[in-house]
Every structure is written in structure tokens, then in C-alpha cells.
């Protein structure tokens, strides 16, 4: 076949994984896809287990299912009973469900526990070519390994528990090529915020992203996870990156990664996964990152983002009535002036954490900025590692002392203030810079206002107590 010319046998990474997992495809019906790995947490699983009990069904493959506690779990005082009665009951229900159905659970005191999208990769469970689902929209994170991974609803959790399969309509493919070299102080968080700002928060609905290009290849695995994590914020259920040497080096030796002969065999299969020359995508887009600035959001969805040194859009200049209304509504909620810069806006809270940016490399970046400095008076800094493993690693490197000495709080792992279910939340009116993924109204607590940014931008802003370009501090 001629390179660069479409060939009917040329397949994308997505096509290959889809076809390798297709169990049944009947006419006029969705595909039955086999699921390699099913991850569970306390919030979206209890009704699914109740459904199994009602119907007298068992979990088909407990050995391909793992549960963790992250969403409503506390990040402090783990030795005391969980204060929130509802959260306590929900966590206990997960324990009962996992016990009854024979599922490995990372409970509150398990040394491997953490946010579901941090622990899967960390344990080596997330592997190239797999299909992975979880009742959580940020399951797209695992796509960084070249796995087809997406969030599902609770009815679908029940279906996968019962059959290890999922009914799916084939999505379209959307290739995003990031070219160029990322400038200093700019991260993969800024790349994904720039993409979402470019195509809008519903811009990739019905599609699966494949991220490619020199700027993606240059990223480490944790930065790739950040990129794939926020695919859903552009409406794409999944975002994939072709596995390469970086992927294999990350995986080698992890507890659940294949070992010895099995590793060699797996490696051969994984090396066949990248999209073929000439493979065709439904949509394509190329972005050059060479001049990318740190990105920051101003509104109430992740698509409302701008480079940190630009001014907030003015609704008066927006033609479309629907978009104008929604921009006005967003700015009113955010109490942010149109046409003005966001730089130097005073902030109340800095949250460094979440499945987007809570891994060791994220914490190292934040610590690099905070080392030897103090958080501005009156500003609260909360640092929540993505897993207990990340926490131990950070403590071994002394990063926790950097955060504590700067005046921040250092916690146990969990989703924490990203979803504000466990008591870690903003007070009404407070403005936060958050390394998480969603700036929806009230997401971090009723009346709370969220600005999304990278760990570097968050840390720099903590020191000044105002929105700060991290490039002025590194």
C-alpha cells in the first residue's frame, strides 16, 4: 500500500480495539462489546448491585472488576468513623456489595486506594488495546495508554457486571494533531483547555478523539492522562493516544502488568495498535502548541477558556443570541467583568488535585513553584494527592513539607474538592483556581466559583493571592 493514501484495510487505533472486542453485531442493534476492565466506585454502583440482586444475577467476571472509594471519601481523619452519615452508608454499601459479589475493593485503609483513574494506571491494570469502563465520565483518562475507555451510566454498570459486555453504537473518530514544542510553563492541561476552547464543550459529541503529533509524543504518561482525562469536557466519550516506548516504560514492572514471557507477547500486540498509515478519520484538526500560553477559564463550562494574558469575551460582541445569553449568565454567576483581563483577579482558594492533575508529576510542578515561598495571606491552599501511592511518593520526596511550609493543607487521597461530596468545598461566593476539570456552577460547592488551570498556574496564583502567569515565577 502507498503511504499516506487511504486503504480500505487501513485502520485507526480505535477501529482495531473496537473490532478486537466485538462479540456480536446484529443488524439494527447496537454492538455487543467485551469489556476487559470494569472499575467501580461508591457513587454510581449501588443501584447496579441492587439491580443484580433483584434479578438474581451474579457478577460474570469479578477478576476483571475492581472497586475503589474516592468520591465521597474523606481526605482527613481516616481513623475516625466517616462523619457524613449518608457518605458513611454509601461507602459501607460498596463494602457489602464487593464482599457479596467477590470483587477486589480498595477500601479507605487500603494502601493502594485512590481516585479510580489514578489507581488503575498506577497498578498496571490499565493496558494498551483494552476496553475499560467505569461509571464515571473521566474514564477517558485511561485512553492515554491506547485503551478504549469511557464513562457509562449505572444501568450500563449493571449490564457490565452481569455480562462483562456493553451495548454500544459505534462512535465517529476525531484526530487532533498537536504539533510543535510546548514552551516552558505550559502543560498538557493548557493543551486540552485550548482544544476545548477551540471546538466548544459539545464540539466532539458523538466522537472519540485520537491525539497525535510531536507535542503529544513528547509528553510523559501522566501528562498524557491529563490530556485524555478532559476529552469528555469537549463532549467526546473517549480520547486515545497510540502506545509507544513512553507507554511501555511506564507499564513495565507494575504489579498487574504482564510479566516475563507474557510481557514480550503483550508488547508484540501493543506495537500493532497504532493507527495505520492512511487510516481515515471522520474529522481532523491540527493545533500548533509552540506559541501556546497557559490557559485559564472564565465561565461556567470548560469551553469558556482563554490564554491567561487575554481579556474576557464581551457578550455585547457575540452575534448569536443563545451564546450571548449563556455568556452573560456565566459571567454574572462568576462575577467577572467582560472585556477585562483575568490576571491579578484576587482568589480565595487554590485546589491542587483531582483525576486531572493529582499525580506525582503534577505535585512536583506545583512544589517547584511553591518551594521556599508562602501562600498569600487569607488564601487557602488544599493539596490532595490522587492516590495513597502518590501521597507516599510525595512524602518520600518531601513535597508535602513544601506545601505545608507554604501554608497549605496536605490530605489523604480522593476526589475531594473537584466534586465537593466529602465536605471539602468552597463557601458561597469564594473564587477558586482549581486543577480539576469542571467549572460548572456550584461544582465545588453551592455558590462557589471555579477557574480551571494547570498546577503551575494554580501554585503561582496561590503565592500572589491573585491570578498569576506561572511563567513569571519559574
Amino acid at each position, binding site marked *: 500500500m502507498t503511504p499516506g493514501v487511504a486503504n480500505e484495510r487501513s485502520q485507526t487505533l480505535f477501529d482495531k480495539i473496537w473490532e478486537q472486542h466485538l*462479540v456480536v453485531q446484529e443488524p439494527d442493534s447496537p454492538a455487543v462489546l467485551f469489556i476487559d476492565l470494569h472499575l467501580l466506585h461508591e457513587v454510581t454502583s449501588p443501584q447496579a448491585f*441492587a439491580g443484580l440482586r433483584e434479578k438474581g444475577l451474579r457478577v460474570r467476571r*469479578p477478576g476483571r472488576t475492581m472497586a475503589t472509594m474516592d468520591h465521597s471519601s474523606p481526605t482527613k481523619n481516616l481513623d475516625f468513623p466517616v462523619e457524613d452519615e449518608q457518605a458513611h452508608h454509601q461507602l459501607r454499601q460498596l463494602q457489602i456489595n464487593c464482599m457479596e459479589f467477590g470483587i477486589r475493593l480498595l477500601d479507605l485503609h487500603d494502601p493502594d486506594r485512590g481516585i479510580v483513574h489514578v489507581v488503575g494506571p498506577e497498578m498496571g491494570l490499565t493496558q494498551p488495546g483494552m476496553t475499560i469502563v467505569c461509571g464515571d*465520565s473521566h474514564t477517558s483518562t485511561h485512553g492515554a495508554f491506547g485503551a478504549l475507555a469511557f464513562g457509562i451510566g449505572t*444501568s450500563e454498570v449493571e449490564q457490565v457486571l452481569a455480562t462483562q*459486555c456493553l*451495548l454500544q453504537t459505534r462512535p465517529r473518530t476525531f484526530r487532533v494533531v498537536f504539533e510543535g514544542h510546548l514552551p516552558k510553563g505550559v502543560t498538557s492541561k493548557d493543551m486540552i483547555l485550548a482544544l476545548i476552547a477551540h471546538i466548544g*464543550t459539545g464540539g466532539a459529541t458523538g466522537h472519540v478523539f485520537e491525539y497525535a503529533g510531536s507535542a503529544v509524543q513528547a509528553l510523559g504518561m501522566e501528562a498524557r492522562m491529563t490530556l485524555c482525562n478532559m476529552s469528555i469536557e469537549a*463532549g467526546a466519550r473517549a480520547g486515545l493516544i497510540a502506545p509507544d516506548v513512553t507507554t511501555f516504560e511506564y507499564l513495565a514492572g507494575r504489579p498487574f502488568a504482564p510479566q516475563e514471557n507474557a510481557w514480550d507477547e503483550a508488547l508484540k500486540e501493543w506495537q500493532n495498535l497504532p493507527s495505520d498509515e492512511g487510516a481515515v478519520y471522520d474529522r481532523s484538526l491540527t493545533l500548533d502548541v509552540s506559541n501556546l500560553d497557559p490557559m485559564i477559564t472564565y465561565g461556567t463550562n470548560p469551553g469558556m477558556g482563554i490564554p491567561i494574558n487575554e481579556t474576557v469575551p464581551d457578550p455585547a460582541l457575540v452575534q448569536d443570541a443563545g451564546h450571548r445569553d449563556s455568556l452573560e449568565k456565566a459571567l454574572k454567576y462568576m462575577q467577572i467583568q467582560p472585556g477585562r483581563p483575568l490576571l491579578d483577579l484576587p482568589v480565595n482558594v487554590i485546589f491542587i488535585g483531582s483525576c486531572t492533575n493529582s499525580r506525582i508529576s503534577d505535585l512536583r510542578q506545583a512544589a517547584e513553584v511553591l518551594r521556599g515561598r508562602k501562600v498569600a495571606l487569607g488564601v487557602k491552599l488544599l493539596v490532595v494527592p490522587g492516590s495513597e501511592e502518590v501521597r507516599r511518593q510525595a512524602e518520600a520526596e518531601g513535597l508535602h513539607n513544601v506545601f505545608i511550609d507554604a501554608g497549605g493543607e496536605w490530605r489523604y487521597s480522593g476526589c475531594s474538592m473537584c466534586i465537593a461530596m466529602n465536605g471539602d468545598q468552597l463557601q458561597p461566593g469564594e473564587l477558586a483556581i482549581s486543577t480539576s476539570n469542571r467549572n460548572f456552577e*456550584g461544582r465545588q460547592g453551592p455558590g462557589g466559583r471555579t477557574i480551571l488551570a494547570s498546577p503551575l498556574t494554580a501554585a503561582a496564583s496561590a503565592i500572589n493571592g491573585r491570578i498569576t502567569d506561572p511563567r513569571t515565577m519559574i
Partner: protein
Amino acid sequence: MQPFTNITSHMIPIPYPNVDTDQIIPAVYLKVTGKDGLAEGLFFGWRYKADGTPDPEFPLNRPEFQDAQILLSGDNFGCGSSREHAPWALEGWGIRAVISTSFADIFHNNSLKNGLLPVLVPPDVHRDLLILTEDDPQSRVTIELEAQRLILPGGREVTFPIDAFNKYCMLSGTDALGYLLSHKNQIEAFETTHSKHENLL
């Protein structure tokens, strides 16, 4: 799940684009282990003012919309989190169908599994429906699933898409899990031929 055939109702307009599932049902309501009582939290942040009193302007609080079964929403409705609590809360409140110009994928899937019908209409029809309901909040439309038809006051008919599988499930109230379970032998065979019998954990 409750079968869906035809409904005739007036429409509750919440026409903003990108209404996310955190607005439909805030995370604080996700600490339940069942599906009941979620209507209490439906659009909580918009239904209630900061002092906890209902906002009389918000459509769900307006007397004329109390018994409406159709939500008229904006583009990309249900974006964000995968929480199925969103359709559970809408259904708990009495909503049976959502009309919009586009839906987020996971919300769309979750709705169909709960007998909540997403009705996709072109932008011009959407605009006309909004005008209708602004003009007279009691304007009623009929949704006929079998014919995939939306009928506006005055008899104008608009067809809407739905795939054959979900249409069957919705009309008959069938849980799609049964379809998956009926393929038990194929799943077993797949596991054998694709070396999927081994466990990961």
C-alpha cells in the same frame, strides 16, 4: 422501565445551551444508594435562591408548569458527568421527554435506559417551540414514539430520529440487559477464542 408510547403535554422551557448534569442534580444528592427522592434536588441551584427560598421565576417553580411532562432544553443538554441520577431526578419530577437540538452522549444513553425520551429537533423547530411556549405556556405538543412524530399545535408535524433498538426498548419498556443476557453463549465463545478467560486481578 415504564413503556413510552404517546404523550401530550405543555413544555417547561429551560433553553440555555450546555446545561450540565451538575445543574440537573448537584453532587450532594449523589450520596444515595437508591433512585427515589432525587426530584427534590432537581435543578436545585437554579430552583432555590441563596437564602433557600424558591425562586418564583424559575420554570419548575411556576404554577403553570407543575404538571408538564416535557422539558424544552438548549443545545448539548446533559453534558458533564455520567450520573444516571440526572434522568432519575427528571423522571422523579414527572418529566417523560426532553426536546433539544442536541444531547450529550452519556445523558442520551442513560435517558433511553430509563424510559425518558430524548427528542432531537432542528434549530428552527426548536426556536418555534420556544416562541410557542413563551407566547402561551399552556401550548401543548404531542410526541408519538411509534411514528417518531412531534405534533405542534395547529397540526404541524416534525419527525425525530431514534434507532430501532432503543425505539423497541422504549415502546415495550424492555430493559436492554435482557438482550445482552440472551447472548450468553456468544460471550462465552468470545472469551475462549480471544483468551479472555484469564483474570486480571
